[in-house]
């Protein structure tokens, strides 16, 4: 669901295809009949934006027919935990949970917490970012439990009641999915659960680019926990990410709300003005995140070196503090208003790749200076003379630099793939001309800035002055023309971490300390370079098993599957012979298996929780989810999310339909940007009656910079198009290949109509709901050019992770051209 894997991850899709050859069932639930649908055993249509209703229907099916995996759910999830008596479910409150403040449009999540003694840490959803929600959530480690699952406020009963109305009939009404097809999916999944069998769910941005994207993934998590599919081979939830190292740039975050390794970014709003307060706010007593102070102090030591001392809180004050939402979407709006002066873009292309691309281009005209770093001239670099708005360059003040950069074969470095696997790539040749690696550009920019601030005594400049910045190799490599290239391996060693006294690399993050004696740039990657000349990301040993633990390095600690303790039963034995993965070796008294156990190595399955201890000692030997405060998989999320403890169906911000389940139409906490250049259509707006969704094709790549300059790819997929159903085409008098105009409240574009049975209208209340599809690869530079789908998309933000909603919005179409 939410992914067209055959189209966008074709080589990864070989493995589901191989599984199918061996008898697996592939189900594709998607608004369009795509290449993935064609290769699936079962194609199931769904209206864009209705994923939670569909998944909620599956949860209800499993619960109401008693098809859940009892032993797994009782031992490994928080089903038995009791929620406090102030909690009010969205079912009983018109689609809104307790704690909602309509004035600020936010939740206070105190009432979602576990029942029991007073909280040890402040429960405040707004204090914690989406990415860090797992670890930093301060829910108590010892909730009150009812193992019989009969208590009316135990998680199991709350979840059961919450989804009771998500019936097959409701799924048909909300999702447009025929009831029989939905029941077929439910039946396949329920039968494929238990000791002998598992199912995996794959998703991509079809889920995340919605105004409740994190909650869709949560709904999949609930389903997978109920079916016993987490931490087991053939199970899990696979995020199919779209870029070579997009996982790496999340782990090593060029993201505003995180420090490396999912440490929350210090914030004025949270009151993090001292390290001590930050630690108190962020650390939790239960679970592995209790080690957060060690990771934070080691990060500060890696950044500020000798200048980071106990007396100055290891330079903590030099880390900037957030004062609000500094995400890309919010920053774009600020830029359009003239509040951002300088913008540096590394291998990105907001002028046609970001939502409301017209607003993005106008924002660029408001800058004093723009630096674009790329292999090719992007739409972003060329906005001042080539944008479709037809601006006169003489009217645009922005000073623009386009710096040529290197491709991966022209530099050493590491990509982290979608499975958390770090793979080092070796330099094969020098980049051409003045092109340099991004590493070179950032490193040498840093040197210049340090020189400019060398003599400053202002407190605000001391962080930069003390920043450790020593990455040139001891001797230059005679093979290369570029002699001042910093060493990627030197950076990777800092990422791995070392003991400060002797610069010896640490073996693992278990060695990190909070007393300033260790330095580590990215704690979750620690172990990637455990000894000199031992770059684990550069290992290329295929092996003869199916886990391939010696190919590259996966974080954390080369574990290929997270929470794999759950692949054994509570007593530590494999659930079954065919699903054997990690188990307790009673003779040797340790965990063993095909993968590195994601559990304390010698902690026996019958270990009782030590209530006086800290961290994972608070968990029993059968609590597999070690990052959670209580060691359990969360069916109900007592903290960590900004938009509710349970996934609930809302309509997209723009929808032709009213919410059939609740009076509340859309997410009460999704962020809109009400501005003249970003209008959002009201529900059921007759001006924009059709749903529109965006996507990619195999032969092109995102905004096109990496594909539309390549002749081979441009020939394969040369032109922008809109996919529309034969029914809608007939209604509008449009023939295949006709020019059409697609209009939304923001803008309108023209492109060719691709009339195809791959798009199918949904029946709703006796009428039809039409949906159209738009790829978003084209722009005004490159060998092939065309209209930009992102011109049509509104600025908006999902509340946990600040991602825009571009998988479901509304439009109108007409035959003809713009002019």
């Amino acid at each position, binding site marked *: 669901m939410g992914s067209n894997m055959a189209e966008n*991850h074709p080589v990864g899709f070989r493995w589901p295809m191989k599984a199918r050859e061996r008898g697996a069932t592939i189900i594709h639930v998607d608004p369009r009949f795509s290449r993935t649908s064609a290769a699936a055993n079962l194609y199931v249509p769904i209206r864009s934006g209705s994923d939670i209703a569909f998944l909620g229907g599956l949860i209800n099916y499993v619960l109401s027919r008693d098809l859940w995996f009892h032993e797994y759910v009782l031992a490994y999830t928080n089903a038995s935990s009791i929620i406090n008596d102030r909690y009010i479910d969205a079912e009983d409150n018109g689609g809104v949970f307790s704690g909602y403040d309509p004035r600020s449009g936010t939740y206070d999540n105190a009432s979602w917490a576990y029942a029991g003694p007073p909280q040890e840490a402040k429960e405040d959803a707004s204090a914690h970012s989406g990415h860090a929600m797992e670890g930093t959530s301060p829910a108590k480690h010892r909730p009150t439990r009812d193992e019989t699952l009969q208590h009316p406020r135990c998680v199991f009963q709350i979840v059961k009641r919450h989804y009771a109305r998500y019936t097959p009939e409701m799924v048909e009404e909300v999702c447009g999915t025929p009831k029989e097809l939905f029941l077929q999916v439910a039946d396949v999944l329920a039968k494929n659960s238990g000791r002998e069998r598992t199912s995996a769910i794959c998703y991509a941005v079809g889920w995340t680019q919605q105004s409740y994207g994190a909650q869709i993934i949560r709904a999949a998590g609930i389903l997978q926990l109920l079916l016993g599919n987490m931490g087991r081979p053939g199970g899990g939830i696979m995020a199919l990410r779209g*870029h070579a190292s997009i996982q790496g740039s999340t782990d090593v975050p060029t993201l505003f709300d995180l420090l490396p390794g999912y440490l929350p970014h210090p914030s004025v709003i949270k009151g993090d003005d001292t390290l001590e307060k930050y630690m108190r706010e962020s650390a939790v007593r239960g679970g592995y995140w209790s080690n957060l102070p060690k990771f934070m102090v080691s990060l500060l030591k890696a950044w500020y070196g000798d200048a980071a001392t106990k007396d100055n809180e290891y330079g903590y004050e030099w880390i900037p503090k957030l004062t609000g939402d500094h995400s890309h979407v919010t920053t774009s709006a600020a830029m359009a208003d003239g509040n951002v002066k300088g913008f540096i873009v590394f291998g990105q292309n907001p002028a046609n790749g970001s939502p409301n691309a017209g607003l993005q281009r106008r924002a660029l005209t408001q800058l004093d200076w723009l630096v674009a770093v790329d292999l090719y001239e992007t739409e972003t670099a060329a906005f001042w003379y080539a944008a479709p708005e037809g601006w006169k360059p003489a009217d*645009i003040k922005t000073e623009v630099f386009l710096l040529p950069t290197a491709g991966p074969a022209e530099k050493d470095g590491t990509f982290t*793939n979608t499975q958390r696997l770090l793979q080092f790539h070796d330099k094969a040749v020098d980049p051409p001309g003045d092109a340099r690696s991004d590493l070179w550009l950032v490193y040498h920019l840093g040197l210049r800035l340090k020189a400019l601030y060398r003599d400053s005594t202002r407190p605000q400049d001391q962080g930069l002055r003390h920043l450790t910045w020593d990455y040139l190799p001891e001797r230059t490599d005679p093979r290369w023309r570029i002699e001042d290239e910093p060493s990627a391996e030197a950076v990777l060693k800092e990422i791995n971490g070392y003991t400060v006294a002797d610069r010896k690399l640490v073996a693992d993050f278990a060695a990190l300390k909070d007393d300033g004696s260790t330095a580590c740039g990215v704690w979750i990657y620690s172990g990637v370079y455990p000894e000199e000349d031992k770059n684990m990301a550069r290992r290329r040993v295929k092996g003869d098993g199916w886990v391939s633990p010696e190919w590259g390095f996966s974080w954390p600690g080369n574990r290929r599957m997270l929470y794999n303790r759950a692949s054994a039963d509570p007593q530590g034995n494999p659930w079954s012979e065919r699903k054997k993965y990690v188990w307790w070796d009673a003779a040797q008294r340790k965990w063993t298996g095909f993968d590195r156990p994601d559990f304390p190595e010698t902690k026996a399955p019958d270990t009782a929780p030590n209530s006086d201890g800290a961290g994972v000692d608070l968990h029993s030997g059968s609590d597999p989810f070690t990052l959670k405060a209580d060691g359990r998989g969360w069916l109900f999320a007592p903290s960590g999310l900004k938009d509710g403890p349970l996934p609930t169906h809302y309509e997209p911000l723009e929808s032709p339909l009213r919410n059939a389940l609740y009076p509340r139409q859309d997410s009460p906490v999704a962020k809109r940007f009400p501005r003249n250049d970003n209008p959002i259509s009201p529900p059921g707006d007759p001006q924009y009656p059709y749903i529109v969704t965006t996507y990619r094709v195999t032969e092109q790549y995102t905004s096109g910079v990496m594909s539309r300059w390549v002749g081979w790819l441009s020939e394969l997929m040369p032109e922008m198009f809109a996919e529309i159903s034969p029914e809608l085409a007939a209604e509008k008098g449009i023939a295949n290949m006709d020019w059409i105009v697609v209009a939304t409240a923001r803008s309108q574009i023209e492109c060719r109509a691709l009339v195809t049975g791959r798009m199918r209208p949904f029946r709703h209340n006796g009428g039809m709901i039409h949906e159209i599809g738009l790829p978003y690869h084209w722009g005004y530079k490159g060998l092939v050019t065309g209209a930009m789908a992102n011109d049509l998309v509104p600025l908006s933000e999902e509340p946990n992770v600040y991602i825009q909603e571009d998988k479901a919005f509304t439009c109108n179409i007409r035959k003809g051209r713009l002019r």
Partner: protein
Amino acid sequence: MSQQPMSRESIEKKPRTRDADTVVASVCPYCAVGCSQLVYVKDRRIIDVEGNPESPINEGTLCPKGAATYRYLVNPNRVTSVRYRAPYSDHWEERPLDWAMDRIAQRIKETRDASFVERTPDGKLANQTTAIATLGGATMDIEENYLIKKLFSGGLGVVSIENQARI
């Protein structure tokens, strides 16, 4: 089976990869599956990029984009020198890399110094600037992302550091 008739030209045909003097392991720059690639180099030039048969991920295969990696790297349309556009100018100018680096550092300093906020109006420590933003990159190495975060956040106090993972 008897020998098939073949022309001399057919007999002498061979893959261009056979002429390589070096073969270097790489990773596909497109999607996040992480297909391993082999880069074939002759006389310090890339002559081909193919799938790596040793990889447990792709076992030598590549998709249409991965198979076009050679043309992504070896391409006459690439920008190979700094292009500079002065304010209100209607054309690109070619500039030396060193000049551009100096000028960018200067512009960052000017903007940062003019916009830096040490404390919020109610006296809370902020040590930040919102007048500079960075965006990128998800097709870049983790070492590069690490230095961007370290320099712009830990060094300069920029808070809007973002990338494709948000989009």
